[in-house]
């Protein structure tokens, strides 16, 4: 690990983590709502500020992280600041950080068991654009009626996967979309209409 190339993490680890966690809570409980998550002092290259903040807030030495190839260089940074364990197999990951340009087969991530649906992966996908008000129509728990959000970089395969993921309930993965400082939650209960 080359320390000289590592950027700084949260400038106030406790307060910044709490603030980010609060934002993540808001994003998951109000799917489709676009929230702001402030980033660390120095964000590594190729990573969305909000994705980086989320990883710093959620990871610790008891969690595992899978990175998509484009984001692999961030591994050292996140390991230094959180102590998380990096894994090469999707199935071993508690958390995953990936870029929409290289979406893997999401079926490979852990979706928990009926007894322990919480033992599923939380997947952070960084996307090129994220904007509330138009685009996909989301509905389900936490949404009054329906809400629209435009999420860039998603392809047919993702929507097919999401249909399978919803059918697994109570099992299934939860997703965060990240773009710049913005964050939007997609819990396993949310229905997407393209």
């Amino acid at each position, binding site marked *: 690990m080359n*320390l*000289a190339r*590592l*950027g*700084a*993490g949260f*400038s*106030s*680890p406790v307060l910044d983590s709490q603030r980010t966690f609060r934002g993540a809570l808001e994003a998951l409980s109000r799917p489709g709502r676009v929230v702001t998550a402030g980033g660390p*002092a120095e964000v590594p290259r190729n990573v969305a500020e909000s994705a980086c903040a989320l990883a710093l807030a959620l990871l610790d030495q008891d969690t595992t992280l899978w990175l998509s190839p484009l984001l692999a260089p961030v591994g050292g940074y996140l390991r*230094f*600041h959180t102590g998380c364990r990096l894994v090469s197999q999707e199935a071993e990951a508690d958390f995953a950080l990936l870029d929409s340009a290289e979406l893997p087969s999401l079926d490979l991530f852990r979706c928990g068991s009926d007894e322990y649906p919480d033992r599923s992966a939380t997947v952070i996908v960084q996307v090129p654009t994220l904007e509330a008000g138009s685009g996909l129509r989301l509905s389900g728990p936490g949404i009054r009626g329906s809400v629209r959000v435009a999420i860039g970089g998603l392809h047919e395969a993702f929507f097919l996967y999401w249909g399978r993921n919803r059918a697994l309930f109570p099992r299934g993965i939860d997703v965060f979309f990240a773009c710049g400082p913005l964050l939007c939650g997609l819990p396993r209960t949310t229905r997407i209409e393209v």
Partner: protein
Amino acid sequence: MLEAWAARQAQAPFTWLRPPESGLVMVRARAGGTGAKFNLGEMTVTRCALRLNDGVIGVAYVAGRSHRKAELAALVDASAQMPGMGERIERELLEPLRVRLEAEAARMQRKAQATRVDFFTLAREAGA
């Protein structure tokens, strides 16, 4: 002693890579002293990492919960990597620190040595 040294230095501007944070490390030992590893118990430790404005990194891991001590240790670590500074720090700080710690250790050692005994076995040796 660290404080006194720091007070004599020009305040080097730096940014925190990782601000001081207190936590635990699990102390490991070995069964029977040399056998299988086991976890004895934890100890508190404070760590931090900083970057001087010219890019040099200083890292510290210090037993206990003093943030200030960790900060100073990381500053010393970073300063020692600056050209020409290593020797000065060795001479002005590390060597005197070592001398003080060794003097204290030697004092304890002498007190322990004063309680050194030679036991004599009586009956058995005489009667054997």
